[in-house]
């Protein structure tokens, strides 16, 4: 079955392609992009995955904490990221492949602070 993917998703998907891949990213809906606007609560610059804890207002205006899973700091730091790339309080726009089960979580596609995307998309 042929499916054409938007270029941005292709590039971004390769940004978070499971590199060491100690597990697959099967729990996420890799065909779907969800855009979140919120405030960084915490950025965990850790192995085996970095995690972005971001507070997002849901439709009812209630704040929900999303857990966004990113690549290893080892590969991110070789793609323009630093442990200080995101700080608590940063206002961000995040694109994520959401968890298939509907929980407030997903894998990182792209994140921008003040309109500037973090990291370099891979070739």
């Amino acid at each position, binding site marked *: 079955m042929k499916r054409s993917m938007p270029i941005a998703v292709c590039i971004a998907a390769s940004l978070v392609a499971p590199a060491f891949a100690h597990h697959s990213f099967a729990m996420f809906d890799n065909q779907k992009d969800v855009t979140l606007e919120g405030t960084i609560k915490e950025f965990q*610059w850790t192995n085996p995955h970095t995690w972005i804890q971001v507070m997002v207002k849901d439709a009812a205006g209630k704040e929900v904490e999303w857990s966004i899973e990113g690549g290893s700091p080892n590969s991110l*730091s070789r793609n323009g990221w630093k442990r200080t790339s995101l700080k608590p309080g940063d206002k961000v726009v995040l694109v994520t492949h959401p968890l298939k089960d509907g929980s407030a979580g997903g894998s990182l596609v792209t994140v921008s602070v003040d309109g500037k995307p973090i990291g370099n998309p891979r070739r």
Partner: protein
Amino acid sequence: MNHLIRCAGGLLAMTLALSVHAQNSALTTREAEIRAAEAAAAAEAAPKVAADKARPRIGGFWEPIDRADTLRAVNGKAIPLNAAGKRLQRQRQQQIRAGKSEDPMKVCLPPGTPRDMLSPGPFMIIQTPAKVTMLHEDRHLIRHVYLDGPLQLEDPDPWWEGHFSGYWDGSVLAIETAGFNGEQWLDSTGLPQSPKMKVSERFSLIDPNTLEDVITIEDPEFYSAPWTARLTFRRLPGEDRHLVQHECGETLLEYPLKEYAPPRS
């Protein structure tokens, strides 16, 4: 001087490449290019190689002479913990006595520096001109020590093992480490460390088969003064040995390991 050496090296490489080509015209272009590049790189590295050949040989396999997993200050002095340090160590020891130890090693976190040198061993030291590498059997720990000189760090990511830099001071190998996350214990008694800690080690051969590691710890968060411990290691015979990686993760499984293949019929 470097420029002259590189020129000489380049000429040598060119000559070698040409003579090799003349000798064996069946040599492919790929092989010739690779050999020429290797020769040029070897010429460039020659001074470093010569320097390392003149050094004591600390490479090989080692095990601790004293199998204690605790650090003691040299000359029987008390470890100069300050009030905060004493409090934290006491708290940890209370937890241990209550069966509620929070030693990070219990959840397979790495011992860090210099606690890695308290591992039961054996470990291997690999000495090269550019770098000294240490491989431990216990938890397959690895120290990567580039011989960049004294440590210079700029906003390092906080690491468990810290960031290393080394240099030879005569026949002594100095290794400096900093940039710790501060979460590990210095030893099993719960000696504390903080992200401010700096560790300076000096490795030297007391005799060809005995290695000493003099460790100075400086951490104003928990210690009122720098203090020094000393560990010694004996060389294991033979350099053609095998290290087995011990996988701590197997002790933390919630779901058991299974062989994927059906049993042999």
